[in-house]
């Protein structure tokens, strides 16, 4: 550690370490944890209870209203059904414009209004029996809420939009292109959708868009991007063993998987530090490599089983060591 390390900000890790090494008494530790805010004071508790009551109260109230209309749904005529939903959307939109999108309550309101648009479209399809495929509903829903999503600067609303586009694509594939087989081509299209979103996210984040600092959205998009490449890669490995390697797009999926994993390992290791996404890449590699080894080895041989077990442990060991080493390197770089 540098000689002036005593001037660096203290964290709970420092305090836990001091306590473990018998340098602090438990009273001193508790006092210090309270001083740095790890153990909350009465003001923090008050804010926590306030937020919890707001969150739970709003959620239960909204679900209760939905249940109430669900109970009376069959008895309502079309006018009332449309009126209720449209009034709901309008009312929430007015509340949002009054409250402002800089507040969490305003942003949550916009999310609720966007959700109600889907309900309105569903009722429209049900009432007039349009006969449209389900993908049409999700696609229309997604397109209609785009303006709200653009102005919202609210990660959950962007996630809703992405989920709707994914659902539209999957349902379009099932209902229009190929009704029976989830093909590699679909996974490649899904990769294109989610991968592009991931790139856009990274670009916006690099530009300093503050509301995108939310970490969990990146984890979800990245996991989806990786998953839609891992599935056809595993299919390719299994088909390779059974001698029915018939889909030429498998090679594209496998190459893309390798390229994306390599790129992500480099990017999140050197450019933007993200240990969780690195761990996700390594978990994906563990699954793919273990499946490949298991497919190539004769499982009637005892030592094949031993080799697979050792391969799993070996990969996990490498992953753990590498992740911890990476975290240590980052820590040293910031000091």
């Amino acid at each position, binding site marked *: 550690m540098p000689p002036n390390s*005593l001037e660096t*900000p203290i964290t*709970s890790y420092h305090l836990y370490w001091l306590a473990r*090494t018998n340098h602090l*008494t438990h009273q001193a530790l508790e*006092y210090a944890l309270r001083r740095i805010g790890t153990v909350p004071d009465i003001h923090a508790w008050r804010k926590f209870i306030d937020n919890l009551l707001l969150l739970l109260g709003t959620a239960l109230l909204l*679900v209760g209203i939905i249940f109430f209309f669900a109970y009376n749904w069959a008895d309502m005529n079309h006018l009332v059904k449309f009126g209720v939903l449209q009034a709901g959307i309008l009312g929430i939109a007015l509340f949002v414009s009054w409250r402002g999108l800089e507040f969490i309550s305003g942003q949550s309101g916009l999310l609720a209004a966007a959700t109600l648009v889907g309900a309105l479209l569903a009722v429209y399809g049900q009432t007039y029996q349009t006969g449209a495929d389900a993908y049409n509903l999700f696609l229309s829903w997604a397109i209609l809420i785009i303006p709200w999503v653009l102005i919202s600067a609210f990660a959950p609303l962007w996630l809703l939009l992405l989920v709707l586009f994914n659902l539209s694509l999957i349902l379009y594939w099932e209902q229009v292109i190929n009704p029976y087989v989830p093909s590699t081509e679909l996974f490649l299209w899904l990769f294109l959708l989610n991968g592009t979103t991931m790139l856009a996210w990274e670009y916006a984040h690099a530009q300093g868009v503050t509301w995108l600092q939310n970490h969990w959205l990146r984890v979800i998009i990245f996991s989806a991007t990786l998953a839609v490449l891992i599935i056809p890669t595993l299919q390719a490995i299994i088909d390779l063993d059974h001698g029915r390697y018939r889909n030429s797009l498998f090679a594209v999926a496998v190459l893309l998987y390798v390229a994306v994993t390599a790129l992500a390992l480099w990017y999140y290791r050197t450019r933007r530090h993200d240990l*969780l996404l690195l*761990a996700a890449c390594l978990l994906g590699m563990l699954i793919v490599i273990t499946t490949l080894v298991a497919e190539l080895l004769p499982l009637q041989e005892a030592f094949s089983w031993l080799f697979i077990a050792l391969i799993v442990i070996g990969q996990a060991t490498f992953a*753990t060591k590498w992740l911890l080493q990476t975290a240590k390197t980052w820590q040293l770089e910031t000091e």
Partner: protein
Amino acid sequence: MTEQLTQRTLIDELVAQNRLQPEAKALVANAFITKEPETPAPWFVTALIAVSAWLSVIPFIGFFFALEIVKSLASIMAVGFLLIIGTVLLHRFNRNGLFLEQLLLALNFTGQVLFIVGIGLDKDVITAALAAWFLEIVLISVYRDNILRFIAVLIATLSALVLLYQFAIPEGIHLLIVLLAIGASWYWLAESRHLTDNMMKTLYQPLGYGFLVALQIVLLLSILPTSQWVPPVTWAYSSWGLTVLLLTVEYYIMRTNNVMVSSPRSLVILGGTSLMALLLYQSPGIIASIILLSLGFQRGNRVLMGLALVFLTVFLTAFYYYLNITLLIKSITLISTGLTLLILRLVLKQVFPQHEGVA
């Protein structure tokens, strides 16, 4: 209030407050400079190790069967027992080999599976559950590994459930639930004390997480429909026990924040909790999740809070889904509960404004 303190400022403050002896100041400062605090492994790295250890149990069992080492029930138990003994001994002498550490963990799990299943097949389920229960207690004390200790708590809890089922005393589950909740609360509320205790400093984290996760897993039974495997149980008993514990946790938190129990604020909080418990007497899972959430916030532990929110969502959804009432009554219940919480929030804001000092 929270502020960005440097290590030096805090040490000086601890000395000034008589919380650190002046002669210890140099020792602490030296410890900071000469040694580097270990960076704890993030939860997902620990999860990766645990998942891979369990994944490798299947090929290991396949290996032993393919080698025809395990042919009879006696050999299954013997191999399992030898694996457990061998891994415990090797683990004690393993100093810095991560690969060996993970290999031993996987082999230990394999040994446990073979040993317990072997006893179950050779004797009966009760003997297997008892053996598993004692085995896990022994392993917790002799095998110094957080993942193993955490999973040992889960296996011991499962064994206790099997015993209750086999002895046909389903109501005994309430005692198990309350004991798990008391254990978890004690582990987390006294975290600072445990961290400075030589025996507890390595035990409290895996056991603390283990007790909480085991508690919530046991409570999942309360939202499952009654069947051959889930006998009917009066869940209100668990709710009452957990409510008493929640009130105790609240009392403890108020006391540590210098809030008088007889103050109006305390009475509102304790009264609100009791009222909520009356409404939720059929759903101990929600009360346990609130205990978990309180413990997580009190310790500034985001993993605990994340777990609490997941379980709270599950139990709340199940509560309203399984309520044996019409959709209309459900909607009225939900609306009135939601409004009550929002009104309570307003009351708290109005009656006890933010700038008010402690009572």
